């Protein structure tokens, strides 16, 4: 039997407290796309070291002997994986599932999920933050960058919403 989701305002307060504790203990906000980036960087570094050293982009993650895998964001994203699992287990929501509108096929949904992920993380790297890192944490420190990025994300999503409506409704 599925449990209902937590009340959004209470969940928001909980999330806000997590963010606040990050600010208080570690002096930074949360982040997500960065964690994915560090995973990619460490894989590239492991498979093709010379390429990583030559590239302007990768080399800065390895200077001074740093390991991208032992970065704050990387550990944090592993934590997200663990935390989501615990929550799902506690609320009996662990199940394999593909979420989509019944009007489209599984293949279409999965393909769009892949492409969407590609677009999103590419944009997140460009804007130096995603909804968690720039928008959520950015607003909590009153940064203009966070605010502008957030407006751009939501505005753009509303603009494209009509074109992808069959995907969801």
């Amino acid at each position: 039997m599925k449990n209902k989701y937590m009340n959004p305002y209470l969940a928001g307060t909980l999330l806000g407290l997590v963010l606040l504790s990050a600010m208080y203990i570690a002096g930074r906000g949360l982040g997500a796309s960065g964690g994915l980036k560090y995973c990619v960087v460490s894989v590239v570094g492991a498979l093709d070291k010379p390429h990583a050293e030559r590239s302007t982009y990768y080399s800065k993650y390895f200077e001074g002997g740093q390991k991208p895998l032992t970065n704050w964001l990387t550990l944090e994203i592993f934590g997200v994986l663990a935390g989501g699992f615990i929550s799902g287990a506690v609320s009996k929501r662990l199940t394999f599932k593909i979420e989509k509108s019944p009007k489209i096929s599984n293949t279409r949904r999965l393909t769009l999920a892949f492409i969407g992920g590609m677009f999103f993380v590419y944009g997140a790297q460009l804007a130096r933050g995603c909804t968690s890192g720039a928008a959520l944490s950015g607003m909590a420190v009153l940064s203009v960058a966070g605010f502008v990025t957030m407006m751009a994300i939501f505005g753009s999503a509303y603009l494209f919403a009509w074109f992808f409506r069959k995907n969801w409704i």
Partner: protein
Amino acid sequence: MGPFTSISGFPAWLDLLIAFIIGTGFGFALEQAGFSSSRKLVGMFYGYDTTVIKVFFTASIVALVGSQFLSYFGLLNLNLVFVNEYYVTAAIVGGVIMGAGFIMGGFCPGTGVSALSIGKIDALFYVLGGLTGAFLFAETYPLIQHLADNAYRGPVKINEVLGLTPGLFTLLLIAAAVIMFWLAELAEKKFARPDITNQI
């Protein structure tokens, strides 16, 4: 006085352990809010489920208010908390690309990973696409570097641009959020789709 990790000599392994624990809290809160469901997340753009805006604004306002009080009582030095740096072009262009990615994929990286952890296969494909996107960016970086570094303004804060004190701006933001919450609940009634909301 916080932040603690700014105390010199703070061990690196403890810093990473804290990252993991905070991440766990993050993932837990996201999943509890229902963000492990892509149809719930995009509901905000079609009106039938406005959980995103409620959670999002409540969370950032709670953190904002909390950090200001901590600063007032001398428990947190806000000068030592990271403020996102403003690169005008990159923030806007990146945001637009992200918006498209959001509506196509139905997730953002944080929610995608937390959905993956409970078994959503579309989230798996989303995260794989995300890793590919990060790889693409890294490989094509020289082409886009100029755009990414354009129009640097530094860690500007909103209240400074508007000439308000942080406290006053916070109050205005809260007022705006309260109105948005009210409108969101109205929208949910108007654009309700019980067939979807019962499934997710």
